[in-house]
C-alpha cells in the first residue's frame, strides 16, 4: 500500500484479529448484559462478521469514507512544534474529517450495518457531543430516526454540539441520573435498548460495551492507524518511535494502535489526569482502575472498595468516563501499550501551544496527548525521537469553555 493522499480513494486494509471466545481480549471483554439483549448482540456479531468480509459492504463503506467523510486524512509534520519540543512530531489529522473527529469513521460503518439489519431507529450516548453529532449526521444521511442520550452536565458544557444534533434532526435526551455525564448516558441508552432492541440499533461510540462492540468499533477505526502507518513511513522512511493518542473509552487510540501493533513503535495512550491523579479527581481508568464489569464488558474501572463505580473527572467531556475498552486493558496487562495521564492544566497548555505554533486548534481530548508530549519531550520521549500523535478532533466545540477557563486562570 502506498501512502494514501487526500483525493485518492479509500482502500481498506485487511480485517484485524477477532477476539477469542465471546469477545475476550486476554482476560477482558465478554458480554455481561441482561438476557433480553443477548440475542441482539449475537445477531449483531453475525451481521458484522459477514459484512466485514463482504466485498460489497467494504466497497460501500470505503466510498462513504472517501466521498462523505473526506478520507484519507493527511498526516501533517509539525515543524514549529518539533523545534519547540526537540522531538519530531507528526499529527494524524482526524480533525479534518466531516463533523470534525474520528467518530465519523465508526458511525458510518454502524449506520450501514443498521440498514443491513433492517432497523430504522438508532440510539447513541455522547460525552463531548462529537459521537452524538456524528451519529446524528449518519442518521440524517441514511434517513434513520436518531435519539442521543447526553449527561445533563455535558449538555451544559457542550451547548454548541447539542444544537448541531438538533439541527441534524436528532432528539437529545438530557440524562440526570448519577453523575449526569457519559457513564450515565450509557446507562440510559442501555435502558432504552432493553426496551427497544427489536427495532433499534445501539450505536456505541467507543471500543467499550459488550461483544461485539469493542471489536467492531476498533475495526471501523483501524482506518486511522492503517493510513497513518503508510503516511508516516513515507515521511520518515520508517516507523515512528512513539505512537500517541488520547484515551477516553479508547476508540481513536485503538484505531491508531491497530496500525502499529506489529511495528517497533511504543504505543502510548494518554488518559485524563483531571485535577491530578493524587486528588482522586481524574479519568485514569487504566492506571487507577481495577478489574470489574460495567456496560457489558469486563475491563478496568474506577470503583470504591465495595465495587460501586466512581465518577470520573476531566476538563474534557470525551474523557470523563470511569472505564476503558477491554482491548486497552489487555494491552496494558501485556505491556504492549502504556497509559500515562495528562492533567486538566496540561491539556489546556497543549490546547494553546498547538494553536499558537501550528495553527491547529485541537479538541480538549487530544490536547491531553499534546500536553503529555510537552511534559515528556526530553524525558520519557528522548530528544530527537519521532512521534506520531493522533489529532482525534478539532477544538471548535471547546473554544467557549477554554476561553472562560483562561479568563478565570488570569483572574486568579
Amino acid at each position, binding site marked *: 500500500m502506498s501512502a494514501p493522499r487526500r483525493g485518492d480513494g479509500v482502500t481498506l486494509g485487511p480485517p484485524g484479529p477477532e477476539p477469542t471466545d*465471546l469477545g475476550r481480549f486476554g482476560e477482558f471483554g*465478554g*458480554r*455481561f*448484559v*441482561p*438476557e*433480553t*439483549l*443477548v*440475542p*441482539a448482540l449475537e445477531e449483531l456479531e453475525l451481521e458484522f462478521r459477514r459484512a466485514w468480509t463482504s466485498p460489497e459492504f467494504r466497497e460501500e463503506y470505503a466510498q462513504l469514507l472517501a466521498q462523505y467523510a473526506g478520507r484519507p486524512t493527511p498526516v501533517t509534520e509539525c515543524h514549529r512544534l518539533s523545534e519547540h519540543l526537540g522531538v519530531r512530531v507528526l499529527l494524524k489529522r482526524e480533525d479534518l474529517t466531516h463533523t470534525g473527529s474520528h467518530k465519523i469513521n465508526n458511525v458510518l460503518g454502524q449506520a450501514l450495518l443498521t440498514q443491513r439489519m433492517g432497523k430504522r431507529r438508532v440510539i447513541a450516548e455522547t460525552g463531548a457531543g462529537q459521537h452524538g453529532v456524528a451519529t446524528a449526521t449518519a442518521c440524517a444521511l441514511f434517513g434513520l430516526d436518531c435519539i442521543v442520550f447526553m449527561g445533563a452536565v455535558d449538555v451544559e458544557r457542550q451547548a454548541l454540539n447539542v444544537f448541531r444534533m438538533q439541527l441534524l434532526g436528532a432528539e437529545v435526551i438530557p440524562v440526570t*441520573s*448519577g453523575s449526569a455525564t457519559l*457513564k*450515565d448516558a450509557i*446507562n440510559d441508552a*442501555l*435502558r432504552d435498548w*432493553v*426496551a*427497544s*432492541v*427489536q427495532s433499534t440499533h445501539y450505536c456505541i461510540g467507543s471500543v467499550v460495551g459488550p461483544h461485539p462492540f469493542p471489536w467492531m468499533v476498533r475495526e471501523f477505526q483501524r482506518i486511522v492507524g492503517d493510513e497513518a502507518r503508510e503516511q508516516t513511513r513515507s515521511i520518515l522512511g520508517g516507523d515512528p518511535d512513539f505512537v500517541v493518542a488520547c484515551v477516553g473509552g479508547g476508540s481513536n487510540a485503538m484505531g491508531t494502535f491497530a496500525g502499529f501493533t506489529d511495528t517497533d513503535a511504543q504505543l502510548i495512550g494518554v488518559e485524563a489526569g483531571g485535577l491530578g491523579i493524587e486528588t482522586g479527581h481524574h479519568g485514569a481508568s487504566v492506571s487507577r482502575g*481495577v*478489574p*470489574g*464489569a*460495567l*456496560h*457489558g464488558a*469486563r475491563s478496568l*474501572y474506577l*470503583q470504591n472498595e*465495595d*465495587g*460501586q*463505580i466512581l465518577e470520573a473527572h476531566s476538563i474534557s467531556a470525551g474523557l470523563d468516563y470511569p472505564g476503558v475498552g477491554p482491548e486497552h486493558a489487555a494491552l496494558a496487562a501485556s505491556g504492549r501499550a502504556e497509559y500515562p495521564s495528562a492533567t486538566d492544566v496540561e491539556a489546556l497548555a497543549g490546547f494553546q501551544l498547538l494553536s499558537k505554533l501550528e495553527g491547529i486548534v485541537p479538541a480538549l481530548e487530544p490536547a491531553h496527548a499534546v500536553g503529555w508530549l510537552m511534559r515528556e519531550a526530553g524525558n520519557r520521549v528522548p530528544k530527537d525521537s519521532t512521534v506520531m500523535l493522533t489529532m482525534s478532533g478539532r477544538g471548535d466545540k471547546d473554544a467557549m469553555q477554554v476561553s472562560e477557563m483562561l479568563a478565570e486562570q488570569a483572574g486568579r
Partner: protein
Amino acid sequence: MNLEATLRGARDRGAKLLVPYVTGGLGRGWLDVVRAVAAAGADAIEVGIPFSDPVMDGRTIQEASQRALDIGATPGSIIDELDGLDAGVPIAVMTYYNPVHHMGHERFAQRLSASGIDAAIVPDLPLDELNGWADAADAADVETVLLAAPTTSDERLHAICERSRGFVYGVALLGITGERTELAVEATEMGRRLKAVTDKPVLLGLGISNPDQARVAAASSDGVIVGSALVRRLLEGGGPEGAAEFVHELRQGLDQG
C-alpha cells in the same frame, strides 16, 4: 431453607407464588419491612443490594438504590444484617455483577451462605458468562436464579431452565423495572413458553404493579415478582405497615385467581 424446595412445596399445595422485592438498606428499618412483607403472605423475598449503575432498573429502584447508598448501605452491610433474620421465608439477593466480582466469587457466595441467604439473582450475568460465579455459588449451596426474556430463543430457553436454580425468572416485558398501567403483552407468552419446557417454578417479574396484573400474570405461570410498585410505597414513607398492606392485597389478588 431452600428456595426451590419451598416454592415447589407451595405450588404443589395449589398456591400461586408471590416474591416481593425490597431494596436492602433503604432506611434504618428496612429489616422490619422484610419481616412485615414475609408475614403478609410472601413465599420468598428478593432483597436488592444496591449498585451505582443499575441498568436493568427504572426510576423507582434507581432512586431507592441511590438513597440506600447515600446512607451507607454496602454489599457487606446488607449481607451481614440479613444474618439471623427470622423472616420464615427464603431470601434471595438481587444485585449486579460488579459488586459480586469485586468481592470475589467464592467470598461473595460464602458470605451469602454464612448469612443464611438462599439464592442470588444477577441480571447482567447471562448464561454464557455464568461459569465462575455459578460454580462458586453451587459449592456454597447458593441457588443462582437465571432470567429468561421474551427475546430468548427456544434453544436458549431450554438451557436457561436447565441451569437455573430456585426458580426461573421470566422477564414479563421488553424493558426495565418500573410500574406500568397495563400488564405487558409479552407476559402471558413468556409464562406459557417457560411452563412448556420446565417443571421448576416459573415466576414472572418486571412491570407487575397491582393485584389484578399479578392475578393475570400468575395464570400463565406459577407466580409473580413485584418490585417497583412496592418500593415506591417505601419511598413515599409507607414503612412496614404500608408494605404489608400492599403485599396482602397482592396475596388476595393471587388467591382469587
